[in-house]
C-alpha cells in the first residue's frame, strides 16, 4: 500500500463499529415483531395461513434475489478485472454472505409446500391428471427440498469463498489471491447461472405448474440484480451519512451505481417483454393462461404499474449523467426501484393465491418487514466482523482514484 492509499484510508472510518450491534438488534426486533404481526393477521384471515405463506414467499424470493445479485456481482468484478468496484466490494461480499441465513427464512416455505404449491397439495387443481403424472418426477416434494438444500449449499460455498479469500487478503496483501479469485470466477458465474435460474423457476414458476417459460429464471435474476444495485446504493449512502466511507466512495462510484440501476432496469424490462411478446404472438392457450389471469380482476392495473413504474419512469429518470451523479436523485430512484421490484414478484406470485382480486394488505407489509428485518440483522452482523473496505486488494488505489472518463 502506498502513502496516498494509507492517507486516504487513515482519514476515513472504515469499520461498522457501534452501528453493527445497533442494526443487528434493530433488525431482529423489527423481524420478530413483524413476523408475529404477519402470523396474527394471517391467522385472522381464516385461510389456514395461505395468504401469509404466499406473501412470505414473495418477500423471501425478493431478498433472496438481492443476495443472489451480490453473489454474481463478485465474480463479474473479478473476470472483468474491474477496479472501480474494489472500494464497495466488501459490501457485496457481506450481502452475498446473507445467503446461508436466508436458508432459515426459506423454512416457512419448505416446511409448508402444500399450502403454496398446487403440485404439492393433496388435491392439485391446476394440472390435468396426465400432465401431473408427466411432471411428477420433477415436481416431487422430496426432490424439491433436496434441490433447495443443494442450491443453498452451492451458494454458501461460493459466498464463503469470496468473503474468506478477500478477508485473508486484508491481512496478507497477497496479490496471488486476486489471481486465484479471477481464475475461478468464470466457473463461478456458470455455476451461479445454472443454480439461480433453476431456483427462480422452482420458487416462482412452479406456482402455476402448467405454465412454462424458458426465460423465467433470467427474468427473476434480472429483477434481483436491479434491486441489488439499488440496495447497494442505499447502504453506501447510509454508511456515508453515518460518517463512514467518506472520501473513499466518491461521486464517480455513485455514477457507476446509477449505470448499473439504469442498465439492469432496461435488461429486466427487455426480458419481461421478450417473454410477453412471444406468448402474445403465438397465442397458444397453455402459454397465455398465465397472462390472462394477470390481465383481469385488478391485476392488470398492477401490471401497467410495472410497465410504467418499474421500467419507463426509472429509465427516463436515470438516463442522464446528471441524475447518476446526484446522490438525492439516486436515493429516490433506489427506493423506488426496490418497492417496484417487490411489486414485480408480488404480481408474479400472488395471482395464483388470489386470481379474483389483488389482496394487498397489512399481511404483505408485515412479511416484507419481517424478512427485511432478519436480512438486515444478518447483513449487519456479518459486516461488523471486519473492515468495510478490502484494504489488501492490489487495485485499491485504482479504485480510490477512479474517474469516469
Amino acid at each position, binding site marked *: 500500500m502506498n502513502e496516498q492509499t494509507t492517507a486516504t484510508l487513515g482519514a476515513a472510518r472504515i469499520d461498522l463499529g457501534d452501528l453493527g450491534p445497533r442494526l443487528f438488534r434493530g433488525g431482529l426486533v423489527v423481524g420478530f415483531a413483524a413476523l408475529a404481526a404477519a402470523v396474527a393477521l394471517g391467522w385472522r384471515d381464516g385461510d389456514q395461513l395461505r395468504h401469509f405463506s404466499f406473501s412470505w414467499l414473495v418477500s423471501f424470493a425478493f431478498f433472496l434475489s438481492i443476495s443472489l445479485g451480490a453473489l454474481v456481482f463478485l465474480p463479474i468484478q473479478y473476470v472483468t478485472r474491474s477496479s472501480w468496484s474494489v472500494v464497495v466490494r466488501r459490501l457485496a461480499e457481506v450481502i452475498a454472505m446473507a445467503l446461508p441465513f436466508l436458508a432459515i427464512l426459506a423454512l416457512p416455505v419448505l416446511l409448508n409446500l402444500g399450502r403454496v404449491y398446487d403440485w404439492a397439495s393433496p388435491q392439485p387443481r391446476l394440472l390435468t391428471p396426465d400432465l401431473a403424472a408427466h411432471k411428477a418426477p420433477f415436481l416431487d416434494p422430496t426432490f424439491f427440498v433436496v434441490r433447495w438444500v443443494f442450491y443453498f449449499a452451492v451458494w454458501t460455498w461460493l459466498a464463503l469463498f469470496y468473503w474468506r479469500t478477500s478477508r485473508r487478503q486484508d491481512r496478507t496483501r497477497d496479490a496471488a489471491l486476486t489471481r486465484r479469485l479471477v481464475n475461478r470466477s468464470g466457473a463461478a458465474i456458470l455455476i451461479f447461472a445454472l443454480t439461480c435460474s433453476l431456483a427462480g423457476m422452482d420458487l416462482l414458476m412452479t406456482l402455476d405448474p402448467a405454465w412454462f417459460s424458458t426465460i423465467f429464471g433470467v427474468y427473476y435474476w434480472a429483477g434481483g440484480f436491479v434491486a441489488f444495485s439499488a440496495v447497494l446504493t442505499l447502504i453506501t449512502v447510509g454508511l456515508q451519512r453515518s460518517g463512514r466511507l467518506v472520501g473513499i466512495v466518491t461521486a464517480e462510484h455513485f455514477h457507476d451505481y446509477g449505470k448499473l440501476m439504469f442498465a439492469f432496469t432496461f435488461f429486466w424490462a427487455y426480458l419481461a417483454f421478450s417473454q410477453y*411478446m412471444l406468448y402474445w404472438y403465438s397465442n397458444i392457450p397453455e402459454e397465455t393462461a398465465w397472462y390472462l389471469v394477470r390481465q383481469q380482476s385488478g391485476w392488470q392495473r398492477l401490471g401497467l404499474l410495472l410497465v410504467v413504474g418499474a421500467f419507463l419512469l426509472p429509465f427516463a429518470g436515470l438516463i442522464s449523467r446528471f441524475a447518476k451523479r446526484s446522490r438525492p436523485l439516486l436515493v429516490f430512484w433506489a427506493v423506488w426501484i426496490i418497492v417496484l421490484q417487490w411489486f414485480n414478484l408480488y404480481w408474479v406470485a400472488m395471482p395464483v393465491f388470489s386470481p379474483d382480486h389483488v389482496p394487498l394488505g397489512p399481511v404483505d407489509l408485515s412479511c416484507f418487514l419481517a424478512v427485511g428485518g432478519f436480512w438486515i440483522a444478518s447483513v449487519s452482523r456479518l459486516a461488523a466482523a471486519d473492515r468495510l473496505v478490502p484494504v489488501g486488494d492490489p487495485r485499491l488505489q485504482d479504485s480510490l482514484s477512479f474517474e469516469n472518463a
Partner: protein
Amino acid sequence: MIRDGLWGLLVEFEDPRRLVAACARVRDAGYRRWDAHTPFPIHGMDEAMGLRGTRLPWIILGGGVTGLGAALLMIWWMNAVDYPFVIAGKPLFGLPAAVPVAFELTVLLSAFAAFFGMWLSNGLPRLHHPLFGSERFRRATSDRFFIVIEAADPQFDRARTRTLLESLGGTVVEEVTDEAED
C-alpha cells in the same frame, strides 16, 4: 484570415501534469479558440480547460425520439391504413408486435445521431488541418503533449500570446502556418 498565414502558436510539453497546469492558465487568461492534444485521455482535463458539457446527449435524444416516432407511424400506416390485412386474428395495429421494430429504429437513429453529431460538433470530415504541417506535432500521437492557441482567437496577439506560452514551462514554442493560404 491572418497576415502572413500564421494559423496559431503551438507549445510542446513532455509531461502530462505540466500540460494540465498550463491548460488551467490558458483558460484563466481568457482564450476561447484553443485546444490541447495528447496521446491518451487525461483525467481532470475537462476542468483544467474549462470545457462545458457537450450538447451531444440532446442530439442523441432527438435521434432516438425521431426513430421511435417514425417506426410507430410507419408500422401503423402500413399495417392499419395502407394495406390492412388480418394475420392470426391479431389487431391491425398491435403494440407488442410494433415494439421490436420501434426499439431497433430508436437505437439505430440514436447511434447515427451520436456518430454524426460527434462529427458535426468536431467539424469533421475534413481533409487537412494546419497542425499537420508541423513536423513536431506528429508526436502528439505517441509521447508529447501540446497546447495550441489559434490566431483567430479574439485575444490573440503574436507577441503577448507567445510570452504567455513561453511562461508555461513547455519545451518549445512554434508558429504554425496555414500553408494552404500561402
